[in-house]
């Protein structure tokens, strides 16, 4: 019995090691409308490199140090790069916009010199005049209560309640649906994200590596975070890699009616091939910025 448990442990450990130690290449595409972006993931022992294989434009290249989590964004267009520490490349806590001077929370108690000999004491503020009842601001406790709103006609007779809109900045969550399938030989689990009238279906596996969404710019910006900017980090947090992800319009349902079918696709991420291979990076060409690249400052400055 003890040897049985030991064997199971060894097999489990081997499976986990195998899962965490994927080396090789993954090709994928991101399709948004008429724009198709081909991606290449190169997974080495200590690094992950994500780049666009369409060379019609000099697209940025992402290099992740697997041990430290540091992200390097290479900009071939001007031979520069920026290093982002772990906290800077995860947009869970968006940075503030360029700083504005902070306003004092309360006005200063007194402006100008104080305690000057011979300085007359400032006159007291005049009291609030007693306005006629119902006219202007009322002082004291004699303020009459606001008149109540007249009852809506038909209230209590089936009049619908005032609808409560969904909360602002609704929390976006990655929800497992329980569905499972096999894609490209990998066991995948289905997840969903819903936000702002859109739904994203994701089939992801834990047999490859934690996902790294392709970034063209420094992440974690202010303003509303779009579902396109969030889904990758959510999956990364679960240490899963998507084989297929589709973002669709999801029109709201009218009260009492079934949800309408999802609308047309807005975005699709699809893995085309997964090739296990030992990546040779002896010279650091894949995992380090080229020597003639200039390091520039990261945002915010």
């Amino acid at each position, binding site marked *: 019995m003890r040897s049985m448990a030991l064997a199971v442990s060894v097999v489990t450990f081997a499976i986990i090691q195998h899962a965490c130690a994927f080396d090789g290449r993954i090709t994928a595409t991101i399709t*948004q409308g008429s724009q198709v972006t081909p991606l290449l993931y190169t997974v080495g022992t200590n690094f992950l490199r994500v780049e666009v294989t369409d060379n019609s434009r000099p697209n940025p290249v992402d290099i992740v140090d697997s041990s430290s989590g540091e992200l390097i964004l290479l900009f071939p267009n001007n031979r*520069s790069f920026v290093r982002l520490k772990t906290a800077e490349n995860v947009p869970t806590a968006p940075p503030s*916009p360029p700083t504005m001077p902070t306003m004092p929370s309360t006005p200063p108690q007194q402006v100008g010199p104080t305690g000057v000999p011979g300085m007359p004491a400032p006159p007291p503020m005049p009291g609030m005049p007693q306005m006629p009842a119902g006219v202007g601001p009322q002082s004291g406790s004699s303020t009459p209560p606001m008149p109540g709103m007249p009852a809506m006609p038909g209230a209590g007779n089936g009049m619908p309640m005032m609808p409560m809109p969904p909360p602002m900045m609704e929390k976006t969550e990655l929800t497992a649906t329980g569905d499972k399938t096999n894609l490209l030989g990998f066991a995948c689990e289905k997840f969903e994200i819903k936000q702002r009238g859109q739904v994203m279906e994701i089939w992801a596996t834990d047999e490859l590596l934690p996902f790294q969404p392709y970034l063209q710019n420094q992440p974690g910006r*202010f*303003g*509303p975070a*779009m579902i396109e900017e969030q889904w990758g980090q959510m999956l990364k947090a679960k240490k899963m890699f998507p084989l297929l992800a589709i973002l669709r319009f999801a029109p*709201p349902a009218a009260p009492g009616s079934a949800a309408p079918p999802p609308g047309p696709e807005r975005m699709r991420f699809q893995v085309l091939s997964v090739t296990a291979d030992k990546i040779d990076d002896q010279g650091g060409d894949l995992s380090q910025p080229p020597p003639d690249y200039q390091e520039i400052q990261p945002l915010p*400055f």
Partner: protein
Amino acid sequence: MKIKSAFQIAVVMVTVLSFAQSSKCFAQGSLTPPGAPTPAMKTLSQVEPRTPISSAPFTITQPGAYYLTTNVMVSSGNGITIATNGVALDLDGFTIFSSAALANGIGISINSGLRNITIANGFIQSGVTNNGSGVYSGGGFSYGIYYTTIPPGNVLISHVSVSGSQYYGIFLGIGDSTVVESCTVRTVGSYGIISSVVKQSSATDCGGIAIYGAQICDCQGRSSTSSDGIYGSVAQNCYGSSAGGSGVYATTVQNCLGTTGGTGSGISGTTIQNSYGSSINGYGIVCYNADNCFGTCNGSGYGISADAAQNCYGYCSGSGGGVSVSSIANGCIGYSYSGTGLSAFIANVCLGETGTGTGLSVTYNVNSH
């Protein structure tokens, strides 16, 4: 006879007295000079209290006012280095060139942590170009105006034009009182203008963010890559464009125009008013609150996507949505060619239309069609 003689004597007396009086009025001083002549004119330093600069490289080590007397050129490294506080540098219409074969150095370098610097009225020019595909290369300066290590404070840059730098145009940081006013930047490989306040300025053909600041007004920023055209806290009366990023990206946006190609957003922010945003496959306008806005997309994006929208018009000529509001749309119009014209949780006096898709998709409809 006696009377006549007396009269003649009186006339003679009056004439003599008159001469005596007049000769007294026109009396001259001594012909002997009072002493050696003394200089009455101003000194050169009084006439022009500024220090001339006629060649580069030049390092300013003493506070005061400086001015260029001619165009200056370096073959490598910095043009002018400001190494002390309290410097006013007037380029006086002249140009600082670099002929370096490979871009290096800074046109005007400000040493670490300096205060009270003014630079005005001239040009910084070098030879970096864009090959048309967004690749920047060539010789000259790496940076137009830039600092070393610690950002400077109390800095004003005005009426300066920078062109052809490999990385930054005018970069002052945003943590302190830095102002860039009435400046232009063209063809730089990375950031165009970075300053706390940027006004009445333009940065065009930038490989990174074109204009970045806390307050940006009356500006134009154009990025040739996936970086943003305008990026800041407050953007007013601005035009931003990007090849793939956001045209304008700011917390508060008023009276702006933002356009982007690809999947970026025309304008992205928290509150957007009186603005127009346009995108291909991304969002024309995306924000928490949109007011009096117009947003368009051509592909699978949205004309306008917001938590709340008032008096807005969203248009999508593709499969995307015209207006998508997660809570309340008030007085809005949305149109989509094959997607949903207007979708909202509550639509109040709204209109949604479509070619082949769904015109209006709302949970609670109040006088909307």
